[in-house]
């Protein structure tokens, strides 16, 4: 289990996160939603140890995050960042292979290459394998990065639990690949992986998340099952936008109210 315990993050005098507590259990998908600047990415980065905490603590399987060494942690926890660029002509396959780093001693084995191929296939990027990464489109690059992250935690570690942190993984993807990404997250969660995902699409969150965490001004506003959290009142409060909540296949479907369209 990953736990944030009363964490506060400040940049200058501004509180980006204000006394936030959240836990992510192995086997569940938690979606972080909120307006721009609500602190979603910062919360995700805090879980990954990328942000200096003003106060509070991140605990991973009952040990403080600081007590884990990078290598040990990297074998069970993978992170897909929002912006990662690469200025050198690695091939897509080489990029995905970097995900195997925590498992490789010396040179990669045939098993590592198999995993990389399978990961590329999972994100439908097999045909990109030999292409030069910086020449790929934004969405293609994002899928290759996803393959890298999947390859990192492809196999179950000793005690079974794995964790996946995805910061806006669907940002530059087309409709089909947005769903593919979350289907993959779903499949991993069914195999005892805890997933924390920052999303902007409320419907994607409603369909795939086990739990939704709404954030506002650096605090958690509401945290619970999609059907409970995604109400018209909450969405209005968080995003200052009128919506109607419909139902589709037993899940909430969020539609903007007609009055919001400029005609």
């Amino acid at each position, binding site marked *: 289990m990953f736990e944030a315990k009363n964490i506060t993050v400040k940049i200058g005098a501004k509180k980006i996160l204000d006394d936030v507590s959240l836990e992510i259990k192995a086997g569940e998908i938690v979606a972080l939603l909120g307006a721009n600047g609500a602190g979603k990415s910062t919360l995700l980065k805090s879980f990954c140890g990328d942000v200096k905490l003003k106060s509070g603590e991140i605990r991973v399987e009952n040990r403080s995050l600081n007590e884990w060494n990078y*290598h040990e942690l990297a074998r069970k926890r993978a992170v897909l960042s929002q912006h*990662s660029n690469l200025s050198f002509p*690695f091939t897509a396959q080489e990029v995905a292979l970097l995900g195997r*780093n925590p498992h490789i001693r010396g040179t990669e084995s045939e098993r590592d290459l198999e995993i990389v191929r399978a990961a590329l296939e999972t994100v439908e990027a097999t045909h990109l*394998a*030999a292409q030069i990464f910086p020449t790929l489109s934004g969405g293609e690059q994002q899928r290759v990065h996803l393959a890298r992250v999947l390859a990192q935690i492809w196999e179950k570690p000793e005690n079974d639990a794995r964790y996946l942190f995805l910061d806006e993984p669907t940002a530059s993807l087309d409709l089909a690949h947005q*769903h593919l990404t979350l289907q993959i997250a779903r499949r991993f969660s069914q195999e005892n992986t805890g997933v924390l995902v920052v999303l902007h699409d409320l419907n994607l969150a409603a369909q795939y998340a086990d739990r939704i965490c709404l954030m506002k001004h650096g605090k958690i506003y509401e945290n619970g099952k999609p059907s409970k959290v995604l109400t018209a009142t909450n969405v209005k409060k968080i995003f200052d936008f009128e919506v109607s909540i419909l139902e589709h296949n037993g899940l909430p479907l969020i539609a903007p109210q007609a009055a919001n369209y400029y005609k």
Partner: protein
Amino acid sequence: MRENSPIRLERKHPCLQVRIDEARTEMIPNTLKKQRISVLASLARASKDACTPILVILLFAVVFLSIAIGAVEISPLQSLAIAAQKIGIALPFNFTEQQQSVLLYIRLPRVILGLAVGAALAVSGAVLQSLFRNPLADPGLIGVSGGAALTVSITIVFGEIIGLSNVFKPYFLPFAAFFGGLTATIFIYRLGRSKNSSNVATMLLAGIAVNAFAVAGIGLMSFFATDTQLRNITFWNLGSIGSASWTNLTVAVPLILFSVVMLLRRARLLNVISLGEAEARHLGVNTERLKREIVFFVALAVGASVAVSGAIGFVGLIVPHLLRLTTGADHRFLLRNSALLGAILILTADILSRTVAAPAELPIGIVTALVGAPFFIWLLLRKNV
């Protein structure tokens, strides 16, 4: 074929389909597309594999050429015979006393120094580019060499005052250069990176600042210098491997060899850190330690090179670039091949510098700059940075 695969069907109703069909992973691999890709990939792999042997052959050719060419000509067979005689084997090729001493005391140290300096500069360039995540980094351009040159000048001028005799100077200079290079690298690294992202402009500007400071400092040292010291500073500053002797090899070459080997051993980690520091940390790399090690070994390699050969620019910029174009970015190939191509380039430049204006000798730094500066401009135009 792709249209009929289960993925397409599944995608038409993404809302209904939550589970991913396990069977799909077995469905795709047998497409024609994949086979074509594997052919392409194996071709790319073949050029990767062929690159190192080709470079080794070229390197041997340049080494023999470098030994053969000069005021006293020595054929490859003669040089083999001289080397064989040294270890007690007689080969049936005649050579003169003069050829023997020219080979052993002038050409051979020079070739060895060229090999070491070329490898050091090219590998350092490749490593710095990965560290800064910026293909324009070069030990000369960003001021590592400049920092080293400044401390060397200071040592040349003030060494005598503090009683550093000529016997110890060859041993002391590489360490002075190392200290200068290290300070410059740390300074530029701190300046040139703002919060996780590397900034091309800041890095190059920091390099300009460091170089300007170094030039001013070296100028100041020239002002204090005696006539002999001034000559030393000027010639050495233009870059030359002509001062090679067994004495200055014994310090510089082991230092260079050690640091280059240590950098080569970190090739895989350099691949990971190319993604960025945060990503590398997520992938289990202790980035703080890796950065310290890289900066230390680069400063050691460049410092030792600068101490014996002066500031030779652009090698660290050109070599990794040419190799990335042909064999890709994987540092496990890139660093190894950079060492070879860097050595080849320095020896070639040295042959040119000795022959173009013979019997006079051009400083090698001028030759590399004449080739390197236009290359740098071409890079800027091409990359549009």
